[in-house]
């Protein structure tokens, strides 16, 4: 091998090492950029999306649709944006219900997205159960709390018979409280004859 060949070989080797170095540097730049910009929730950076607290009622064995608590119009993201929401209960919150009791459902048809909170049929009753959630929109995120209720809603109706009376007459006031139970309802009625106070 001539001296010229040796020089040529050295040049090729140096060029190859330089290319490897540049390739590696490029990869690290990409990775570093991703790490720096991923805005991972929990990495110490503040949440940049403002999310509202909200209450939601879900009957056991069903799902209830809810609007986006982190947007002004309640809409979920449309392409080309990406969004996602997940429950992030604290240990204390998690200890107050079973993991199987609750889950989220996202339905996407074309550009239309709806999200629901679902409660298992055999779940315990939730009464204003606090559950933290995290919402991500592209590289931004926000957190807040939902208050989940599964307890049947008590309804009360009130009637007066007759509904209008003259001075000195009396009217019967009837209040009926209804509580859904096993597909029917439990009613409790109370009535009183009342004369207007003078």
């Amino acid at each position, binding site marked *: 091998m001539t001296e010229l060949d040796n020089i040529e070989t050295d040049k090729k080797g140096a060029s190859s090492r330089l290319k490897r170095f540049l390739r590696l540097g490029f990869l690290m730049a990409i990775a570093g950029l991703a790490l720096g910009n991923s805005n991972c929730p929990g990495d110490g950076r503040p949440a940049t999306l403002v999310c509202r607290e909200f209450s939601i009622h879900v009957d056991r064995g069903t799902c209830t649709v809810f609007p986006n608590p982190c947007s002004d119009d309640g809409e979920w993201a449309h392409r080309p944006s990406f969004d996602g929401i997940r*429950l992030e209960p604290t240990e204390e919150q998690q200890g107050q219900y079973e993991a199987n009791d609750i889950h989220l459902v996202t339905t996407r048809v074309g550009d239309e997205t709806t999200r629901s909170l679902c409660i298992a049929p055999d779940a315990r009753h939730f009464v204003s159960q606090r559950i933290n959630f995290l919402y991500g929109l592209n590289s931004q995120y926000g957190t807040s709390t939902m208050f989940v209720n599964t307890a049947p809603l008590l309804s009360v109706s009130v009637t007066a018979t007759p509904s209008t009376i003259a001075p000195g007459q009396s009217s019967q006031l009837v209040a009926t409280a209804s509580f859904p139970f096993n597909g029917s309802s439990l009613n409790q009625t109370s009535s009183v004859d009342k004369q207007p106070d003078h």
Partner: protein
Amino acid sequence: MFVLTKLLSNLAQLAHSKILHGACAPFAIALIGIAITASPPQSLGQTIPEAWIGTWEVSVDYRDRQTGALVATDVTTDEICPGDPIIPPQLAQYVRCSSEATTSDLGISCHNWHQTIPGSGCNAFGDVEFKSQFNDDSWVGNGNWSAKTVGKCAHANYAEDIVVSAKRISTKASCNRGSSSLVEKFFLHSRLVPFLAGSN
């Protein structure tokens, strides 16, 4: 060589600080993997075969591996178009994944990964596996993803099982909305969202 080692070490430390806080551990783990092994970004991998064309209703269940509890269900109605990538190109930059697609099978695999983060005593592990079968107008499959950190760092641990059941509701698809990957359409997990930003 010293400069390279120093750069790698700095990057790993940066990634480690992310992992300490947990939420993005799966992808920070993958990023460290890229940095340490210095592998070039993967190609876009397989694309959707012609036989899959149509409008599909795809249901994906995510279950917590530890408790078995259903965490989330995504039900998506969208088109599957021949030639669309399976893995989002922007994700392929971060995670070493491979995919395969034939007229009857589709699989995604993001390598088993284990790395001791230099100088930290922290070990990170990550994995995604998914296999599915396509038959006439049905598509069913299952898999899992997991990521965890152990050692001298905050212990993040995520593991979910994935179950997919889908039916083709029409063999027609306009395929005029631009190319979008299968993962972006049907596997839009909340933890993926930050990494898909700015892709379109």
